[in-house]
């Protein structure tokens, strides 16, 4: 909900007219949207998520949303979060706890460690 408000503010005031925190709120909302809410009903793996996997994913996403990332300027936020989303989406398309899945997971840890 906060992400939606932030997006409206950014639209009205412009990218550089709002504090970086607004961008962070917006992109945190986008992570939840793209990774948890959106689901590909036509992909063999993504179409069904077990409860165990949902719990894991939710905890991972919440962990990202609760982390204070450091950014110098607002234009760093967009590409950084897009990388996180891409990585998590790739995880959604990989079999749970498979080699590929774990590889994306470790890549995600590397990405999140970059700006902690």
């Amino acid at each position, binding site marked *: *909900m906060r992400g*939606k408000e932030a997006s409206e503010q950014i639209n009205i005031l412009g990218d550089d007219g709002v504090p970086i925190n607004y961008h962070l709120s917006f992109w945190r909302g986008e992570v*939840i*949207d793209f990774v*948890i*809410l*959106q*689901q*590909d*009903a036509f992909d063999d793996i993504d*179409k*069904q*998520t*077990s*409860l165990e996997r*949902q*719990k894991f*994913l*939710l*905890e991972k996403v*919440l962990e990202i*949303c*609760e982390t204070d990332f450091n950014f110098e300027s607002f234009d760093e936020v967009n590409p950084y979060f897009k990388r996180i989303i891409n990585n998590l989406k790739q995880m959604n398309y990989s079999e749970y706890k498979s080699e590929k899945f774990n590889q994306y997971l470790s890549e995600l840890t590397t990405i999140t460690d970059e700006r902690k």
Partner: protein
Amino acid sequence: MKKEGKTTHGKIAGIIANLVTVEVDGPVSQNEICYIKLADIDLMAEVIKVFETKVFVQVFESTRGLKIGQAVEFTNAMLEVTLGPGILSRNYDGLQHDLDRMEGVFLKRGDYTQALDFEKLWDYTPLVNIGDVVIAGDWLGEVIENVMPHKIMVPFKFEGKYTVKKLTPAGQYNVNEVIAILTDSKNNEVNVTMTQTWPVKIPIKTYKNKPRPFKLLETGVRTIDTLNPIVEGGTGFIPGPFGSGKTVLQHALSKQAEADIVIVAACGERANEVVEIFTEFPEIDDPRTGRKLMERTTIIANTSNMPVAAREASVYTAMTLGEYYRSMGLKVLLLADSTSRWAQALREMSNRMEELPGQDAFPMDLPAIISNFYSRAGYVFLNNGHTGSITFIGTVSPAGGNLKEPVTESTKKVARCFYALSQQRADSKRYPAVDPIDSYSKYLEYPELQEYLRKTSAKIGLKKCFLPKITC
């Protein structure tokens, strides 16, 4: 239900589209079925209003060619479905006529086919012993229907206690073979076969109790399970504008949800969409059994070009079939697409009878009709200690995406889960387009569910709730 006595006859006195008024010569009851004689075919119709000797009947077929004075014969029975092994993987119309047995590209008027295959032999095993005392709904025996165990039960219409007098040994029998002879308290003998009939508008209540549902139903759809979970025996509805993915979401649920039996009522949808269901479902692999999904699915189709009165009956037929399987201790997922078309059918008839209209010309008792229908779903404890459930998810197609219209409003009062599909999300290709802020699941407020989630390892484990309305 069938009553003994003289058959009532009547003559057509007036025709307004598929509403026919009949002058009768004897007693007629509400919802009784009658047949209108038209040349070499009989048209099936249902009594919806009785006033002195004038009876209003809704005809389940086109009334083209009917004339004043034509003969009508009443059956003394309400609209009933035939229950027995062989229902799964069939495609029925709203009156439980097998669509696959009908000939031709278009359905012929008055073409009524049998619901079950009376020739097929089933591997039957008895589950009771001679001398056992049984009541309606108790399990007498079992056959395997596709992959599901199908219980042969004491007919639901039986009242009081019965004693098993004679049992047919395990073997191969067709559905009409007598599998047990029971005696009632007055020592009258009654034969029991594998089939029975039940009127669709009366709920089957052969269970011990019906508590508030408390068990999470895993659907595999993240936006449902993680945010607004539905429970076994719960009710939910999906309103959404055209093209927002109602049907795709329902298909996803039917394929993946943790249910034993799936019943799909395609009610008043466009014929091409229903054809898609017919062609797609037999192809889909069932992730749970490794076979085809169709083997544990029944489709009840009543497209928008089929008679409107049968559309009203189709949702009741689907629910009755669901209740039948629930009595076997199975988890049934019932999907109705869409309940708005059903409400429109009610509106058409109400208007033709010149009843006082409610909001948007829907009948005044629309909220009561919807509540009664939704209350037939639920989680039950059977008399033998087993449990069964019907989880009902209906879609609503609000005209112009207006969520304040009467069908959505009335459904909102009774369905505990609300999955609002948003046009904005659908337009930006964010599927499933369930709006996380407008949607809710009232089951999260149930202490029973919270307790269940705490107890089981299947806890969805919300470490921190990021939507303020969720309390856990």
